[in-house]
């Protein structure tokens, strides 16, 4: 009985811990496909650090780059990369895929 209650406590604690981790850093997914970002507009909460998960589904490398977000990261073909952004003030933050700048364009909208 004692073990059961401690198990329940542990489960509750880990659920709380993972909730806190989630609450601390919201996760936003972004896909690169045919040298384009999907979605091209990402709405994120302002004033919070965000985990941006970028999945490159193309067969060629891409570089996520944004002077406005102060970020640059090369993403290998097929790879998923995590990029921390923010905390951001409300506003628009354009980003590009530097290796295919004509097509790979997007904007983070913090609100």
């Amino acid at each position: 009985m004692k073990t059961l209650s401690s198990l329940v406590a542990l489960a509750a604690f880990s659920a709380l811990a993972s909730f806190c981790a989630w609450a601390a850093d919201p996760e936003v997914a972004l896909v690169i496909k045919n040298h384009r970002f999907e979605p091209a507009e990402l709405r994120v909460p302002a004033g919070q650090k965000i985990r941006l998960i970028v999945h490159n589904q193309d067969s060629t490398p891409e570089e996520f780059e944004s002077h406005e977000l102060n970020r640059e990261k090369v993403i290998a073909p097929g790879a998923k990369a995590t990029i921390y952004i923010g905390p951001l003030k409300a506003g628009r933050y354009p980003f590009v895929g530097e290796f295919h700048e004509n097509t790979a364009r997007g904007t983070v909208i913090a609100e």
Partner: protein
Amino acid sequence: MLASAIIVFRETLEAALIIGIIAAATHHLKSRNAWLLTGIAAGIAGALIVAVLAGRIAELAAGFGQEIFNAAILGVAAAMLAWHNIWMARHGAAMAGEAKSLGHAVGTGARGMSALCIVIALAILREGSETALFLYGLLAGSTEPAATVLSGGAVGLLAGAIAGYGLYAGFLRIPARRLFTVTSVLILLLAAAMSSQMAKFLVQADVLPSLANPFWDTSWLLTNGSAPGRVFHALIGYEATPSGIQILFYAVTLLLILAGMHLSRRGPPRSPAT
């Protein structure tokens, strides 16, 4: 072709400007060209290795291998620049002023040069590996013929090299006595810029807090995407929207090197052989 020329030019520019400054700072050394070429060759070899291993490097450190790797490279390069400036504060003025041709001056100069040779290699390694990945992607996935992509890349590389050489040639018009001061200041700012970029990568990997992001916004004046913005970014670490921690790293690096140079200059005199 234009796309590959522009990107290769951008990536080359930063390394080329760094080489231009270092070539000017060491132009009094007889063995300089050999050191420069060694640094460039080592950098190109390293860039190709890093490009091949890029996927593996990225997976390290729980997916933040690329950031940690870049931060480490920038940190080592900044330390080498710092060491060079502090060491030259003691030996350089005498070397440039009096005995350029003396044997010991050449010997001691080579020690300073070895640190700068590493900086050149690291700068090329960083920018070159990205260029190699970009060209690989373009060759593998594009409808453009390989010859077009590669000739575009060659044009970009040439343009970057011309920019670096132009900076170098401009420095050589400065009188020799002033040149030493000018290159010391530029190497100082370059070290601070690299330190600030290192902080940026560590924030991206969530190792360091950003401490207010951005700390200020001067993109109305000069964006980092514009040509002058890129040049100032490469030379003095200009950022239109820096985070607070980048400014902190920049300022602390600047002050530490200045203090080191000051102490080194005022320290007890050593025999000329050291």
